[in-house]
């Protein structure tokens, strides 16, 4: 194997290890189907490998992978139709039985997320699941930061409405703005 290919492979295996979970969770909350999410992650790494020369900044690998994933998910939407069914009747896809004891809260969130538009779900995950800042989201989505802020605000409002209206289980708490969130892999 050529040295460059070997080096790229080692790098990619490291990126699989570090980022696959973050990517999978994004795809899962977007599609609410574990099989579709898994396919999307596999497709993402496949495309990423083929396009590895297009990666400009290795400090932004996750953003780059996430962009590929999001495009893959949107492509899934186009191919399968707007309504990739939420697994409402069998929510075990979405629920970590062993890791998260309060399944009721999680199920409420699943239901509430279902009511959001795709773009609201997407931007909410960027902000709340991955912890990207407004500026980072602005760069990822290539939209002005003001638009990012207003869109997140509307997405949150829509989610809160959905949770308040339909789901009694999620415990309410004081608003904590999460500008710099948790690490992307876990």
């Amino acid at each position: 194997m050529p040295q460059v290919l070997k080096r790229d492979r080692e790098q990619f295996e490291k990126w699989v290890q570090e980022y696959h979970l973050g990517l999978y969770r994004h795809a899962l909350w977007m599609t609410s189907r574990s099989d579709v999410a898994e396919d999307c992650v596999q497709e993402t790494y496949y495309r990423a490998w083929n396009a590895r020369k297009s990666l400009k900044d290795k400090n932004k690998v996750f953003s780059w992978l996430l962009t590929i994933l999001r495009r893959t998910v949107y492509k899934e939407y186009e191919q399968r139709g707007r309504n990739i069914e939420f697994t409402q009747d069998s929510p075990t896809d979405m629920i970590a039985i062993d890791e998260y004891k309060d399944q009721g809260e999680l199920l409420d969130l699943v239901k509430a997320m279902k009511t959001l538009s795709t773009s609201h779900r997407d931007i909410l995950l960027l902000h709340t699941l991955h912890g990207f800042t407004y500026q980072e989201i602005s760069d990822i989505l290539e939209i002005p930061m003001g638009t990012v802020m207003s869109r997140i605000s509307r997405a949150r409002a829509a989610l809160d409405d959905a949770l308040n209206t339909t789901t009694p289980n999620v415990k309410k708490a004081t608003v904590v703005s999460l500008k710099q969130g948790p690490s992307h892999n876990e």
Partner: protein
Amino acid sequence: MSDDNKMPVSDSKLNTLFMSSPAPVGLEKNLKQNLSDQIKAEEARFSIKYWQTGLALSVAANVLLAILVLAPGYKAATVNLIEQAYLHLHHEIEGHSIADNTAWLGRRGIQMPPHDYRVAIAKNCLVGTNHVQHVRLTNAQQQAINLLVFSKDDDKGFPIDDMGEKGRQQWIKVHPRKDTHILAFFDNTISNSEVNTLIDKMFDKTIKYSL
């Protein structure tokens, strides 16, 4: 629902909920295996591509080499044969070795020339190492066309240029039949097309022998 119940969920709470979804068992392993397969396929494609490129370059190099090696030989063959033919024709003209029987042509499947030409020479000759039939045609204006008829199976046996000049004569190579090549020498006052027309009339595609 109380006011307290209408308070929004915190980002950190949402984050905890979002993060609580498990990954499928073996996803990381599958992804690494897919990557490995993808790289192997890529390597295989590269191998084929390089092999094809190498083969193409090799063929191109050989063709180039053949041209470089054969082109001078091809040129030398042309010069050599034309030189020999020209000297032979010069000798024949000086020697006045005129054939007395034009029926000789018919026995070799060659038609008689148009009426404005007469057969001045028709005989077997040796040009270099080539056995040829020499037919000399003249007209009332004392213009002359010398046809040296080579019996060769194909162009490989007759590797010379298509036309040229030698002394005061022009010459062209004509391939009227599958097994026949003709070197035609003629005066500068005669056109190539006239010679070609004449040869077409004398050398039918289908050989018609006459005794």
